[in-house]
């Protein structure tokens, strides 16, 4: 464990709301609006943290536990997340599973908090959330397995002795330019799959429209209708951390800068993240939301891309 890897998670804590800002600025640019400031989410969080709260009479402690649990899970996940070549403070074989399941934990409690209000709308959003995430999870895990394989292509270690090759930090530190040159198509497909998962899990168009005005069509926004004050702040912040988590997984893949200097690598990944946010903004501006019935298809396609990448890599 070295100094950069200790500091980086805290940097992520500070920087993550910026991503949402970039997405919104991009959308404003495309729509020809002035748009909200880049740091709007910071202002929102500060404002919400100063407020009181209103709780529904229907709710129980689950409703209050929801935001806390999801933020805690997101922060925990940050500690296994590498910034490209810069490794995470905790890295161990299989930490990608922990990351994926911590996001599962976030979702579990967000959904329960939504159901706790007894509102039809929030139930509807929760129902969609669990459906889509159940399909996104295989795509994510298989994609990461493929990425693990792409990095260490020529050495097949004896099973059981991986020396961190199955940790996110191990996987991402090996995804250098060489890996792209030797297995570019596969990595491109993994990147595509991860990007789809990124959009789906962060409730972005074409899966969900964060700015829609009709509760009936929302997914994530409708689940948190009843939260307010510090609770809402925690949810918004947790969501931006989730965006950072999945975004880093994608950006670390598409930015193959592995200099060995943790700060340089990390800044490259941060640039990649900003680019990803920009791309998300472009996607949101140019695409329409998919019909809900078509969403599973896109997620299954993402799973397929991951699978295809894995097959391609195993076939070499």
């Amino acid at each position, binding site marked *: 464990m070295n100094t950069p890897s200790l500091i980086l998670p805290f940097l992520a804590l500070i920087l993550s709301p910026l991503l949402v800002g970039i997405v919104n600025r991009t959308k404003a640019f495309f729509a020809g609006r002035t748009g909200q400031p880049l740091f709007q989410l910071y202002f929102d969080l500060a404002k919400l943290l100063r407020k009181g709260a209103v709780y529904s009479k229907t709710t129980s402690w689950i409703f209050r536990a929801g935001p806390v649990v999801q933020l805690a899970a997101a922060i*925990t996940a940050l500690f296994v997340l590498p910034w490209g070549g810069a490794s995470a403070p905790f890295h161990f*074989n299989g930490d990608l*599973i922990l990351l994926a399941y911590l996001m599962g934990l976030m979702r579990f409690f967000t959904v329960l908090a939504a159901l706790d209000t007894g509102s039809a709308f929030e139930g509807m959003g929760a129902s969609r959330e669990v459906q889509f995430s159940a399909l996104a999870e295989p795509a994510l895990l298989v994609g990461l397995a493929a990425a693990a394989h792409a990095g260490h292509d020529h050495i097949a270690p004896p099973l059981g002795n991986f020396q961190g090759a199955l940790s996110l930090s191990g996987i991402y530190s090996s995804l250098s330019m060489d890996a792209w040159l030797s297995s570019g198509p596969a990595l491109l497909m993994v990147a595509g799959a991860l990007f789809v998962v990124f959009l789906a899990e962060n409730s972005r168009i074409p899966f969900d429209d964060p700015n829609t005005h009709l509760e009936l069509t929302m997914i994530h926004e409708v689940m948190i209708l009843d939260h307010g004050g510090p609770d809402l702040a925690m949810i918004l912040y947790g969501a931006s951390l989730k965006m950072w988590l999945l975004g880093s997984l994608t950006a670390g893949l598409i930015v193959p800068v592995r200099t060995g200097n943790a700060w340089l690598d990390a800044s490259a990944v941060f640039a990649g993240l900003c680019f990803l946010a920009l791309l998300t903004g472009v996607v949101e501006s140019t695409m329409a939301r998919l019909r809900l019935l078509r969403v599973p298809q896109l997620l299954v396609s993402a799973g397929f891309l991951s699978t295809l990448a894995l097959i391609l890599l195993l076939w070499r």
Partner: protein
Amino acid sequence: MSLLLLAVALLGFSGLCSLLLGGKRSGANTLGAAGGVVGSLVGILPAIQVLRTGTTATFYHPWNVPYGSFFLQIDALSAFFLLPIFLLSALAALYGRQYMESTPGGKNLGAFWFFFNLLIAGMALVVTARNGILFLMVWEVMSLASFFLVTFENEKESVRRAGWTYLAATHLGTAFLFVLFFLLGRESGAVLLDFDSFSGAGSRVSHVADVAFFLGLVGFGTKAGFVPFHVWLPEAHPAAPSHVSAVMSGAMIKTGIYGILRLLTLLGTPTPGWGWALLAMGLVSGILGVLFALAQHDIKRLLAYHSVENMGIITLGVGLGVLGMSSGHPALAALGFGGGLLHVVNHALFKGLLFLGAGVVLHETGTGELEHLGGLMKKMPWTAGTFLVGAAAISGLPPLNGFVSEFLLYLGALGSIEAQTMAPAGFLVIVGLALIGGLAAACFTKAFGTVFLGEPRSEHALRGHEPGRSMLLPMVLLSLFCALIGLCAPFVIGALCPAVSILTSMPFPRVESLLSPAKAPLLWVSVGGILFLVLAAGLAGLCRRLLARRRVEQAGTWDCGYVKPTARMQYTASSFAQPLTRMFDGILRTRESLDRPEGLFPVYAALKTEPRDLFNDLVYRPLFLGVEWLALRLRWLQEGHVQLYVLYIALTLLALLIWNLS
């Protein structure tokens, strides 16, 4: 060993006493439950001793039954199954005393406890028996005892039907086991059907081993509830009293897994085909189990289907282990078997917990129908809290125990892909586990959300209140165990090693060195879990402090402009699951009948969905109808004349004679 015999004797004796006391309800009830608790607690001791010291305890006594001997042995594998069996049984017995008090007056509680304690003893003997005849006998005792427990409320038509389904299924399974043991006995050529003598049977002629494996897979698979042999499970579990369901689902169906594992140790080096068969079975059971569970409206049926799913996960691990062994990758074998075995214990803990919780709901509100419940969180906070732990654990979420066993399986699968050994298997396991995990989370948010959260949906749900301490204590203990395994993950590896070393037939130090690389990740998993808990506590404290001096109001749920939201406007369990069930409708075939709202001011509208079981509808019902048809066609054979029957016997003997002489 003597402790195990003592435990069995205690169980039998207390069961008999309470049977004799049958007339005096409360006496029989207390005595039976106490016998169950004490007997089980005594039985845990030898299991712990074997696991700790790594020794094997044996008891041998000749028996004048043909081929039989009274041969019991506790090795690490047996001990590993004895542990959840006795632990869960003890807690279920404790819970059961109060649960049974409220049963209607005419019921004989003495008989109930007799069979309950018999079931515990039967399970314990099944996993320790080392003789084919003895095994089949205690297997049958276990099955029959559980049959009588399932049909305890036999005044209900549905319970009787469930009982018959169970009886038929379990005997079909046993039939396969009969053939299995006699086949093995014939091949080994030994006088007694002792397990020790089987070990050479498989290796001599390879297809004998294949046939034996297939017989075992079907026979034991029926007990374990693998798809497509699972049909008895969703019938029997809801019919039984809840603590019986907990024991049956948490412990009894594990004897099926135990049987397969024990068979594998007898058959020698496995072939890859077996591994693939197990993997396919696990994948199908896991995914279909959770899909069927999603479509259910009844909480106990839902849990029963989840047992099918979890048996699938365990089998995925076993399949991975067998593939690792057959392809000569001991590390994969160790991780696969290790993950599978750990999931056996984990499933016993959280499924027991969930069934006990469902029992409380059923007991207090009088209904297990999800759509009639709701808002129980406020009325029974302890039950709800423990149920939540169980729900999160079964969905495989950190920092609980379900995550640890799935983590081991993932590690094996990722490793197999990385090292390019059995990569397709690893891929299938990853996809399967990820999909199962996501769907299970969907299913348990649905179950927990509709039962405990929101507003009460009917009169039933208004009635609920917290049960007595003796019912709560087992649930609290089980949820503590769930958390403990999750937070002390590295230590479980040590407990797994002896059993894995038996399964892989590798020496103990070798297994230890193979599994020790998994220790560091598990340590970090635990650290992550603790970090998460600390963070959550800190954030909760922060939130509380922030709100301390501010205005915190209570209001109605904001329902997008509706002024008076009612409980009926809540999202129902069926609607919650509908997108997923619709997506997999090709498999689920849920029957829907819809009365559309009509006119500008509709008064009436109704949607009725009836979950079905594909295998029941497409395989078993036609099969049994066919058998019935055949039986009716053959009725002329049976006219009721004694002469005719004698003629049949004579003809059979004659035919046998001719066949033998020719």
